[in-house]
């Protein structure tokens, strides 16, 4: 199936879901519009456009392609996983520790740099970022397990 058909179908289903959800929020009346009034209108408009795109997608060649190489996907997955783990551990381990591991992970696993360079860069960034954001800008970043040291 062509990609445009898939995407337009996804838009259409999304519009359908959102319009039902908005309807359940109460549309109110024209004189007293409810919380669902505006989202319902927006979802309806999305649905109409998606329907036109779906009808127009027949007979078209796909204009875009997704990455196919395994190594490319690996990098993207690594960036996202790194960010997600960082977010998960930020408040327990603290900003400096998480930053150190994230930088080391990116440089070693994604950029395939040497261990010394990766760890050195990670340490420097974590230290400077802590001094700059936490100490100088008082940016309210969690200190985590290094609370007593920092």
């Amino acid at each position, binding site marked *: 199936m062509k*990609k445009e058909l898939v*995407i337009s179908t996804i*838009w259409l289903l999304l519009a359908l879901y*959102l319009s039902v959800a*908005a309807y359940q*929020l*109460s549309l109110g*009346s*024209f*004189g*007293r*519009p*409810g*919380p*669902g*009034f*505006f*989202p319902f209108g*927006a*979802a309806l*408009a*999305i649905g109409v*456009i*998606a329907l*036109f*795109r779906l009808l127009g997608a027949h*007979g*078209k*060649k796909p*204009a*875009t*392609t997704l*990455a196919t190489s395994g190594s*490319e996907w690996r*990098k*993207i997955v690594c*960036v*996202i996983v*790194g*960010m*997600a783990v*960082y*977010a998960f551990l*930020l408040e327990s381990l603290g900003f400096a520790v998480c*930053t150190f591991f*994230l*930088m080391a992970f*990116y*440089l070693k696993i*994604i*950029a395939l740099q040497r261990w010394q360079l990766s760890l050195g*860069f990670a340490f420097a*960034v974590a230290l400077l*970022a802590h001094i700059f*954001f936490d100490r100088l*800008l*008082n*940016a*309210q*970043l969690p200190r985590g397990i290094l609370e007593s040291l920092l």
Partner: protein
Amino acid sequence: MPNCRAVFSSRFCERQPLETLNFLFQGTLAAAAPVNLLYGFAGVLLGTLVGVLPGLGPAGAIALLLPLALHAPPLAYLIMLFGITYGAQYGGSTTSILVNIPGEASSVITCLDGYAMARQGRAGPALGIAAFGSFIGGTLAIFGLAFLAPALAELGLHFGPPEYAALMLFGLTALVYLAHGPMDKALLMALFGSLLASVGLDPLTGTPRFTFGILILRDGVGLTPVVIGLFGVSEVLLNLEAKTGEVFQNKVRGLLPTLQDWKDSAAPIARGTLLGFFIGAIPGLNVVIATFASYAIEKKISKHPEKFGTGAIEGVAGPETANNAASCSGWIPLLSLGLPTGSVTSLIFGALMIHGLAPGPLFIKNSPEVFWGLLGSMVIGNAMLLILNLPLIGLWIRVLRLPYFFLFPLIILFGIIGTYTVSGNVGEVVITIIFGLVGFLMKKFAYEPAPMVLGLVIGPLLETAIRRSLIMSRGSFAVFVNRPIAAAFMILALFMLLSPLLTRRRLGQEIIEKLEEN
């Protein structure tokens, strides 16, 4: 102006232009006192810094400095706070141009052409024109503020919900010119953005909408995590996926704008100043809207609209000028009417009250030394910012020479810090990750992020304005056309939508694209 006379003192309304200039000169002299200069410099420096760093905004910096109000001299302290606000507008463009992460929401649109220029080795001219445009727009807006504040405050009072709704719809017509590809895709993204904006508590009834029981969604989907994800994170993903390895051209072409760049930018800067000034003066309107409107107009009247989005300097000059002009005129509702229209103006309102100063119709008359001193400080502060920012261009260019494997972890880190510090909640980081992936997929399928951001910004304003208008009119849509200002915006919106068909420029372009697709 009989109404004006009722509100302001007759002496104020009948002030002669030369007298205004004299007041501004006296204010500038007061702002040039050493202690005021020092505080002013600290303010613009801090403002630039928080502007450069995504997520850290002027509101946070001002909130941190509020306790200082009890110890610092009143005028010097207020000069510093004002410096932070317009300094942030200068800094906001830097990361937009360098790494495609807007430092401030008002620099989102700068990403489109600024980042494209950086990739072509023209980060210097982009940063330069942003700094010069900001300086020109900011300085001229101060003069506008001095001469037109009371009249514009009066005009702002005539804006009711129908006028706002019509203005927002006019703003949405900017989509026609924001979009590089098919219009229906841009419209889909804008509608999706406005739907995203409806996540959270309903502004009129307080009913939770689309929150799925998730606590962080009750506050809505924030602009900062969405923008950092859509622009910054997705760009990193795309660059890492590309096999070429070279993200920025190594050969840097000039550190400052060339004569041709100036020729191309002069008119956009002039238009950006006017547009930003008038949009900023309307209470409740976001500076972001001024930048989108400026970009749309520049693209609309350009002889080569197809170059927008690929590194057209006009796409940087206009919006960057507009955001500074709007940032200056944004003080009109607060100082002339006593209306704090956002978090920053609310904090400044608080700071003024701490010093026993009451912003409002009598503020200029009762505290002329503060009003004119602040205006004078903005003239000096804008010059300081230009001097401060121009030498930094060389430094920023060097950042781009870093190998990308050093640069991308730093971009991600700044993005995370920017989103986390907005509310101190890791949920914001999760939203950034999600929109990073969404942005990546959008670019893969040729959907543009800018219309979605426009929808996210305009959505809440539009919804509230439409619903209030309908309540006012008891359900009659005629309210949008039978009030003169609203009707004028509706006609303008219609003209903006239909004009491409009349000129056939866009129609022709779409036909070519459709033929290419088939």
